[in-house]
């Protein structure tokens, strides 16, 4: 009886030892990794500059009692997206066309119609600038 107990105890210890050592053998060797950090250093970024609208065209529409002028231009893109607005001014004057003349302070499309071009003999010229919030771009080449 005593012999059997001793043998069992021995076998149990052996099994435990094999399991423990086997676990050690299959565990991959430890690898150290250091944390790394840079000192704060400068990275750069830059803002865009608005460009002038191109392709400005002026089409005069003379009626019996009225005369209007439709001004059109190509969209100005920022980051591939059209800018949200444009400002149309009378060429040379820098005066923004009032709402009553059809071109509101900020035009959100790429054309507007000046409905107050009454003088049939006059030559109206216009300039268009791209607008992004407080930003205003350079004027387009004036067009008659």
């Amino acid at each position, binding site marked *: 009886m005593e012999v059997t107990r001793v043998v069992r105890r021995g076998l149990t210890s*052996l099994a435990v030892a094999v399991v423990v050592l086997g676990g050690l053998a299959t565990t991959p060797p430890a690898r150290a990794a250091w*944390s790394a950090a*840079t*000192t704060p*250093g400068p*990275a*750069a970024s*830059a*803002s865009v500059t608005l460009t002038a609208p191109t392709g400005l065209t002026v089409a005069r529409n003379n009626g019996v009692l009225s005369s209007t002028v439709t001004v059109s231009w190509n969209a100005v893109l920022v980051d591939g997206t059209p800018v949200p607005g444009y400002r149309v001014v009378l060429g040379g004057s820098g005066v923004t066309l009032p709402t009553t003349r059809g071109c509101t302070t900020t035009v959100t499309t790429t054309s507007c119609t000046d409905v107050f071009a009454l003088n049939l003999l006059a030559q109206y010229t216009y300039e268009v600038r791209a607008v992004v919030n407080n930003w205003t771009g350079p004027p387009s080449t004036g067009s008659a």
Partner: protein
Amino acid sequence: MTTTTLRRFRHTARRRLLVVVAAAAVLLGGGVAWAAWTATGTGTAAAQAVTATVAAVTPGTPTASLYPRPTAGYPTTGPGSIVFTVNNPNPYSVTYNAIALGAVTSGNEGACPAVNVVPATPTPTVSITVAPNATSTLQTVPAALSMLQSAPNGCQGVTFTVAVTLTGTSVPA
């Protein structure tokens, strides 16, 4: 079985058990050592961990991309991209996987005060691995900065810098 015989048997069993355990330890322990080291040799050796040298970030030449942020947010991740290189003076590779953005400096503080540009949220993610004793290629992190909607007209065509801190870990060889 007499008491003497029983003692002898116990003694023998213990010895056998010790031998078996020792043999198993040598064999399996040898396996661990073999897994970690493949070089052999004799003599004495000494090892000392290197002292990590802090890496530095240097700005690159940016492509103009920033403009006043639309109410609905920027339509792409292009605006506010930042560019830089990072050098690794250590004799091991490092992977940086976190970036912290600090103070912004304006290239034209008079026309466009730096307060008009702020780090974007959420903070962008990075994964930059730099070889030992090397400088990275030019890194571009998109959507890192944002410009306030109220930014003045003078903020067109301005270069900004932002303090960048990268954190990561060494890459095991």
